[in-house]
């Protein structure tokens, strides 16, 4: 019984995480400009990758038993994917705007390009 529950939870987390990354990739095809592409990457890094790490950790722990070091590494990985990739997205979005990439005219608020109202 426990075996089946673990299998289902791991399956949902792993396939859900992979599907989130795939949906981000599909959304990137439809995004109108570079800043929107930076924006649609966030679900992949903030939701998909933590789900994958969680699935891998659950399956590993079920097979090999609970290990404090491994649990700490998995926790660091989850936090890193959420926090670090958000900072990276912010920096890249700012750089995309500064480098003069074409911007959707409906973007608002827009203080960086200097024509804010």
């Amino acid at each position, binding site marked *: 019984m426990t075996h089946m529950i673990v299998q289902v939870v791991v*399956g949902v987390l792993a396939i859900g995480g992979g599907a989130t990354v795939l949906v981000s990739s599909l959304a990137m095809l439809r995004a109108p400009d*570079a800043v929107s592409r930076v924006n649609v990457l966030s679900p992949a890094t903030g939701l998909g990758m933590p789900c994958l790490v969680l*699935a891998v950790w659950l399956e590993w722990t079920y097979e090999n038993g609970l290990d404090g070091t491994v649990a700490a590494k*998995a926790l660091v990985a989850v936090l*890193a994917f959420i926090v670090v990739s958000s900072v990276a997205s912010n920096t890249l979005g700012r750089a995309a705007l500064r480098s003069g990439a074409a911007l959707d005219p409906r973007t608002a608020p827009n203080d960086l390009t200097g024509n804010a109202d």
Partner: protein
Amino acid sequence: MTVVIWITVLLLTVAALLGLVQVMTAPDDASRAVIGDLIYFCAVGIFLILALRYDSVVIFDVAAIGGLLGILATIALSRILTRGRR
């Protein structure tokens, strides 16, 4: 469990291939930098789930270091995009 692993690998591979197609069709360099990020995370995900299949001992080291240092490539590309200005 094997089925779950291969379905996830398939999903991530399709995501990475779609990213590669977009590298060709992207209108500007900033978009290509973002797509590089996407492919990086796909690669980390494929490694994680395959390492589970083949009983690797470095699964969580790769996850933690990949998450923490993935920012370096992005920051470097940002600086290149703005020609060194902040």
